[in-house]
């Protein structure tokens, strides 16, 4: 079922106007004003129609593979004959909360991709806090979940690397080492946990891509990216990888002091998108966060993906109607839909 999203909660402003207003109040967003077009025009084509599906899902146990299959079909995922790389969020392990993309969702997605005709499906991540990937893989249950579906895992922290010149220029990084598995994949699928983030407001499919940057060069945590400016680095890394699909795990998300020390919140949704920016905009709305107040999302909407809801074809549930209030730290109270709070100054983010 297709229907337009209720746009009343979105301010009708052009992306540039939004950024001008927002940046005036947010020190963290000053990067957007330095350069009018901080990307190579020939590297990023015009933005097309994005498709996003919000699918109710309250359990990791029942019919998840079918749910994922339906979601992927709803956004027109075309993976026939493709080498698919699934990039879940696997940061560190804490049995008391929900830091990581649930392994059952990852396994269900492997199976769904195969049913859609993918030639090969691998799961890959470079954990950002824990250097011992073997431990995180095992402790989280991802190792056994992948064994159940006979899927290979690639540790992106130790994978072969390729130097990639950046075609966007929000940071001064200039180039990045990227794992060969990521570079050579036909389809990269960003699979974040739906979480609030204590330095960025929300962490979704764009921020999740920090895990593609190899820790053996950029460190644990990947502090070189934070040093380059957290939001600018989100944009440059995402623009270097350009995932074709996003699947946001909001069955149980994390609110409050995410991405590590927050509280589980049963939000009961999976969000699928054929455009990671569009998926993140809709996911933010599902958290009752106004995506137009998240500067990096709006900036990504200028060149990387669709942040204009009029250009997002929605399938399934209405994210506004189905939204769950994700608790926000006081510094991000202004992100709440309808909030009159002023942006607060943010501390420098070390990692």
């Amino acid at each position: 079922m297709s229907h337009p999203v209720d746009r009343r909660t979105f301010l009708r402003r052009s992306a540039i106007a939004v950024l001008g207003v927002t940046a005036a109040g947010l020190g963290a967003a000053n990067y957007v004003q330095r350069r009018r077009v901080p990307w190579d025009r020939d590297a990023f084509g015009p933005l097309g129609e994005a498709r996003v599906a919000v699918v109710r899902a309250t359990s990791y146990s029942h019919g998840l593979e079918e749910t994922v299959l339906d979601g992927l079909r709803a956004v027109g995922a075309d993976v026939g004959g493709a080498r698919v790389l699934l990039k879940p969020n696997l940061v560190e392990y804490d049995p008391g909360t929900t830091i990581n993309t649930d392994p059952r969702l990852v396994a269900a997605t492997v199976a769904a991709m195969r049913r859609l005709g993918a030639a090969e499906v691998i799961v890959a991540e470079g954990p950002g806090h824990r250097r011992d990937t073997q431990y995180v893989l095992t402790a989280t249950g991802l190792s056994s979940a992948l064994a159940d579906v006979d899927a290979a895992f690639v540790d992106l922290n130790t994978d072969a690397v390729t130097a990639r010149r950046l075609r966007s220029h929000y940071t001064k990084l200039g180039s990045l080492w990227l794992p060969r598995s990521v570079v050579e994949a036909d389809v990269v699928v960003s699979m974040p946990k739906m979480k609030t983030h204590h330095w960025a407001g929300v962490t979704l499919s764009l921020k999740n891509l920090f895990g593609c940057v190899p820790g053996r060069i950029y460190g644990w945590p990947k502090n070189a990216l934070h040093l380059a400016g957290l939001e600018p680095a989100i944009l440059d890394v995402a623009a270097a990888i350009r995932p074709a699909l996003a699947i946001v795990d909001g069955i149980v998300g994390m609110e409050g002091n995410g991405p590590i020390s927050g509280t589980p919140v049963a939000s009961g949704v999976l969000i699928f998108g054929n455009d990671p920016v569009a998926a993140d905009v809709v996911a933010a709305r599902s958290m009752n966060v106004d995506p137009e107040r998240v500067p990096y999302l709006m900036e990504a909407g200028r060149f990387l993906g669709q942040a204009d809801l009029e250009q997002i074809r929605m399938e399934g549930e209405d994210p506004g109607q189905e939204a769950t209030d994700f608790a926000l730290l006081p510094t991000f109270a202004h992100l709440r839909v309808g909030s009159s709070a002023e942006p607060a100054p943010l501390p420098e983010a070390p990692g």
Partner: protein
Amino acid sequence: MSDPVSDSFLDALAATRTSDGGFGPRAGLPSEPESTALAALALDDQEARAWLAAHQRADGSLARSLGSVTNEASTALAALALDGDAGRGAANAIAATRAGHLESSSALPFDDDLRGWPWTAGAFGWVEPTAWAVLALRVVLPGTTDAIEEGVGMLRDRECVGGGWNYGNRIVLDEELPPFGQPTAMAMLALQAFEDDEVWRRGMAALRGLWRQEAAGGLTLAVATAALRVNHDYDATACAAALADNFDRTRFLGDIVALAWAAIATGTGLGRLMINDP
């Protein structure tokens, strides 16, 4: 007399050497400074040392650069692995550098006079590269007391509440962050011979618990075995047994850094990480 467990690590490691004499992070990948330095320590290997020496910069450091990012953290491991002037040159390069400055805040309280060492030049200091630097300076250049004291001070400052270390944040937004096994073991390698110190005692107690909780991780077990051995702890034998068992089952998923640490921890290479100062 050879030890079959140590020999299995050494044999597996030696088999991953690349054609240029160095070692990569996984079998078949190009040589890199960290894996080559650890292999040189584990195997007491002149070819690997030659690779390191050939890649030293004029200031003695080893670096990997691309764009605006330069990773020099492995210089400390090279200092431990290299002999003579080459090793001292690498250690001097460490003594001459520090992490970038980040101001302490209520969100992130810490002593911002104690910078430690970063993963990448100009970035914030973290526990693992700082532990490597402290260990290298204490072994190779024990006279660099200012640098050593700063590094030890940084490790003390970033100790998790209750003992042990994670990557290097003690408290973030009023949340006490938990310790992890692998960086705790790295810190305890750096803090060996501090037996009279409360931080050392808490760290050892934390490590004895953490390696058991995290025994699924080969790298954790390998570094923990090394830390327990150099600190003459009774738990070293049990940890080494868990390490051997993990390797038999998983081959550490092909991680050469974990394999090299296992070879160091159970072999004679550990002697080069021993601190002899009073």
